[in-house]
C-alpha cells in the first residue's frame, strides 16, 4: 500500500543580534528559552553529532503531551544544523528541519526550513493559530500607524 500524503514546507527568516557561533550554540542549548528543546517535560539530547538521536516531550497549551523524536543529519558549526523531526503533527513521519546561520555585520540571518510537513487539518491550526498570527499582525499595523 502506498501512503500518499500532501506535504508542505515552512520557511521562517529572522535576524538575531548575535554572532553565528552564538546563535548556533544556543540552538542546541536546552537552557536557552528560544530553542526547540527548552521547556521540555523530558529531554534526551546529549552532544549533537551526525546520527545522534534526540527525544523531548513537549506539552501543548491545552495540556496535551507531544513526544518528539529525531536524528541529526548535518552539523556544520556555525553555518548549518539539520535534523529529522517526528511527532503527532508529522503523523509520525520524518520531517526535516534545516537551520542556517549567515553573518550579517554584527548580526546573524537565521533561516529555518521545516520540510515535508503534512498539509492537513492535524498540522494546521484553526482559531489558536489565527489569533496568534493576527495578534502579531495587529501589533505591526498599530506600530506603523
Amino acid at each position, binding site marked *: 500500500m502506498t501512503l500518499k500524503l500532501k506535504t*508542505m514546507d*515552512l520557511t*521562517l527568516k*529572522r535576524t*538575531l*543580534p*548575535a554572532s553565528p557561533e*552564538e*546563535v548556533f550554540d*544556543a540552538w542546541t542549548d536546552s537552557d*536557552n*528559552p*528560544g*530553542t*526547540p528543546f*527548552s521547556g521540555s517535560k523530558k529531554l534526551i539530547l546529549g552532544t549533537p553529532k551526525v546520527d545522534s538521536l534526540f527525544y523531548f516531550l513537549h506539552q501543548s497549551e491545552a495540556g496535551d503531551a507531544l513526544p518528539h523524536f529525531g536524528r541529526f543529519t548535518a552539523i556544520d558549526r556555525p553555518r548549518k544544523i539539520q535534523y529529522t523531526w517526528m511527532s503527532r*503533527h508529522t503523523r509520525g513521519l520524518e520531517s526535516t528541519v534545516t537551520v542556517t546561520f549567515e553573518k550579517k555585520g554584527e548580526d546573524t540571518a*537565521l533561516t*529555518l526550513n*521545516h520540510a515535508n*510537513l503534512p498539509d492537513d487539518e*492535524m*498540522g*494546521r*491550526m*484553526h*482559531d*489558536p*493559530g*489565527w*489569533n*496568534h*498570527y*493576527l495578534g*502579531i*499582525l*495587529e501589533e505591526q*499595523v*498599530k506600530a506603523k500607524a
Partner: protein
Amino acid sequence: MDTLTSVLGAISHPSRRAILARLAAGPARVTEIAEPFDMSLNAVSKHLKVLEGAGLVRREVQGRDHVIEFQAAPLRQVAGWVHEYERFWTERLDRLEAHFAAKRKRKRKP
C-alpha cells in the same frame, strides 16, 4: 474599506476579541454574549455591529431573539491557515531574539 482593514479594525478592540472567542465556542443570543461582560446591552450591540460589518459574525433573527454566529472566513482570508509548527517556531524565534537582544544590551551598557 478593504477586508484587511475592516477585519483588523474589528479585532483591534479587546472586548470584540473576547466576544469572538465566546462565539467561536458556538452561536449565542445577544443577551448571552453580554452576560459575562461588564457592559451594557447597548455597548455589546455596538461591538456586534462592527463585527457584523467586517463579516466576522452573522445575525439570525429567531422570533424575538437575535442569534449571533461566528464567521471564520474573513479571518482565513486575512491570515490563512497557520501551521502548528509555524506558530511553534515563531514563538521560539521570538524568545531567541529577545534573549540575544537583552544580552547585547547588557554587553553595551557602560
